[in-house]
């Protein structure tokens, strides 16, 4: 047993030497997830105390010259949540075609009739038209909500003001938005991007490791290795050990950078974080073996792997939080290890969860890693046995 352990360490050590032999490539191996995570974090960061920095670009077309319509349009332009501009119909059509911006609100002729509206009154209702680019459906819904609010407020103000004498009408209730971080660590958009991009990079690192195994199997060096007294399972475990240990170091390096530069902190259990980092590192190694087990040409394995990794990254919420996904995709995502890894990392970082709360995520990630590892090893052992019998 000790001899086999030495063999595994020798094989893993060889991979480490090969990894470090190209120092620039090794450095990039640590730098790329950091750069990716930082870039995503900067894009989605919302500065504290501001107006969240997000204003919907909007064009307003006023085709009715009445004072009520003009007032509603002015209030839209003044809204803090909009970056609105009043333009002509022609200009709006032209700019909408170029998606600059993607949403246009049109107050058509006849809208002024709303100024004489009475509760319970009959007759046709004036219409506000929201024109949008097909890629801006969400923005259109956003604009529709703000237009409804502005027009209703103006209408209420005008209809209720006579009853209030000199006082200004205000909304009878207030809306307070509170960031739901369960009162613990507090949300940091960099936490999500560092977790997501690190995870995604680890999967790609696993893929590269698998492809190198695939390449090795086509090379003479594999013949020498297989003619040596080394059990095949030692080769596979050695490969997994080197892949997982390098991946683990990448997780630590990325989060260390995130801590010092962007304030990404482990607000919850440190043990949970380390176990989770270990789990995703083994998951990366298992992914690598699975890539090698797919077999075939390197180009084929690479294409399939990229497709699968991008798919599980997107569905697992590694790029954007999974709540933006459609319902079926959210349902599907619970069957993916990436979803559970993200839940775990979110838990131990900005949600500040303790070890026991993180245990489910850790266990599911470990379970997936074990399952994928078992499938890959079984497939590789089978294919190696076939090779020994002369089947390519």
């Amino acid at each position, binding site marked *: 047993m000790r001899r086999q352990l030495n063999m595994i360490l020798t094989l893993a050590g060889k991979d480490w030497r090969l990894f470090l032999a190209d120092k620039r490539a090794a450095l990039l191996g640590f730098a790329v997830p950091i750069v990716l995570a930082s870039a995503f974090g900067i894009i989605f960061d919302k500065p504290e105390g501001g107006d969240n920095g997000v204003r919907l670009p909007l064009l307003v077309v006023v085709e009715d010259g009445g004072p009520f319509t003009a007032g509603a349009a002015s209030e839209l332009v003044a809204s803090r949540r909009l970056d609105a501009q009043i333009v002509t119909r022609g200009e709006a059509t032209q700019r909408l075609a170029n998606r600059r911006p993607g949403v246009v609100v049109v107050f058509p002729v006849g809208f002024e009739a709303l100024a004489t509206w009475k509760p319970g009154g009959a007759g046709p209702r004036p219409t506000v038209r929201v024109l949008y680019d097909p890629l801006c459906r969400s923005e259109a819904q956003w604009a529709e909500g703000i237009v409804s609010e502005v027009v209703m407020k103006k209408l209420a103000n005008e209809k209720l003001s006579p009853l209030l004498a000199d006082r200004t009408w205000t909304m009878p209730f207030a809306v307070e938005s509170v960031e739901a971080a369960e009162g613990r660590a507090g949300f940091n958009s960099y936490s999500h991007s560092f977790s997501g991009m690190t995870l995604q990079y680890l999967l790609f690192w696993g893929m590269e490791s698998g492809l190198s195994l695939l390449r090795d199997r086509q090379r003479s060096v594999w013949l020498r290795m297989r003619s040596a007294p080394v059990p095949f399972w030692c080769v596979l475990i050695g490969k997994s050990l080197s892949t997982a240990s390098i991946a683990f170091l990448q997780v630590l390096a990325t989060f260390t950078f995130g801590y010092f530069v962007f304030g990404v902190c482990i607000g919850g259990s440190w043990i949970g974080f380390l176990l989770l980092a270990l789990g995703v590192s083994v998951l990366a190694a298992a992914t690598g073996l699975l890539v090698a087990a797919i077999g075939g040409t390197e180009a084929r394995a690479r294409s399939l792997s990229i497709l699968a990794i991008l798919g599980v990254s997107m569905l697992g919420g590694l790029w954007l939080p999974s709540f933006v996904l459609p319902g079926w995709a959210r349902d599907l995502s619970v069957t993916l290890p990436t979803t559970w890894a993200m839940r775990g990392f979110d838990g131990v970082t900005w949600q500040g969860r303790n070890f026991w709360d993180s245990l489910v995520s850790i266990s599911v990630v470990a379970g997936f890693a074990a399952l994928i590892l078992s499938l890959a090893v079984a497939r590789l052992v089978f294919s190696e046995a076939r090779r*020994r019998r002369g089947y390519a």
Partner: protein
Amino acid sequence: MPRRLALTLIDIRVSFGATVALDGVSLDVRSGEIVGLLGPNGSGKSTALAVAAGILDPLSGTVAAGGIRRDTQPAEYAKKIGLVPQEPALYDELSAEANLTFFGRLYGLSGYELNCRVATALDRVRMMDRALDRVGTLSGGMKQRINLACALIHDPPLLLLDEPTAALDPKSRDLLFADLHRLREAGHAVLLTTHHLDEAEYGCDRIAVLEKGRIVAEGKPSDLVRHAPTDRPILYGQLRENVAHFFVKGLRKRLEAGVELEITGRRLRLSAESQDQLGRALGLILSDGIHLETFHTPPGRLDKLMRPSAVPVAQGEPCDAS
């Protein structure tokens, strides 16, 4: 004094689907001798070597090295052999010393013993002064010598070499054979595959000619030449650069019937029914833009043994197993 049996192959059968690769091959290799497995492409010589190296399982038959059977004691068997694949089986990114250390550890060596073995293996192939150089920076001939050193790291009694000179220039080839002859003198057994007859004739003590998975002739080169039935003109050449496989295939189709062309790495073998036919074939090859650095016609006539149904199996020198 009888020499020890280093390798025994008894009635080895291997098939790849419906294709029979080895059909009842039996062969002994003894310590202190160099045996060449000779045959055209697809004759089964690399398959036989793979079986002996323990990387291909035969359908039936017995494989043993130094009295240790491959099927019952695979780990012990592996320690008895050192494989030198055709392409250098090395990590280009690591130094020669690091490669040797890695492969030595796979054989259970460590510490002082490993360091000594690394030094000895490098010394044997005269590469001590390049020990710390990255393999990727070495020439083809140097890589092949490090390739040989890696196979020697655990001091195996039997060396298996697959087309060891395929990509070497004549000088590197001579150096490699000088190394092999020194190893033979030190008591190592060597089994190598080649389809370059001049190498087999002058570099090997014994030759086994494979044809369609069967040994069709076996014995000392001089005996085989004496018993060979016909003469067949042959030419060996060294190409200036590698030639694409599909190009060689296309060229073969345009050669006259009876002309045989083999190109392995940068080495060429051309044989024909007559001198005139050989000259015409050479002219066609040269006019196709294949440049030869050197070429020669060997004095020996072993090539005729590589024709189907050439001669009955000749017996090698009888030896006692010990």
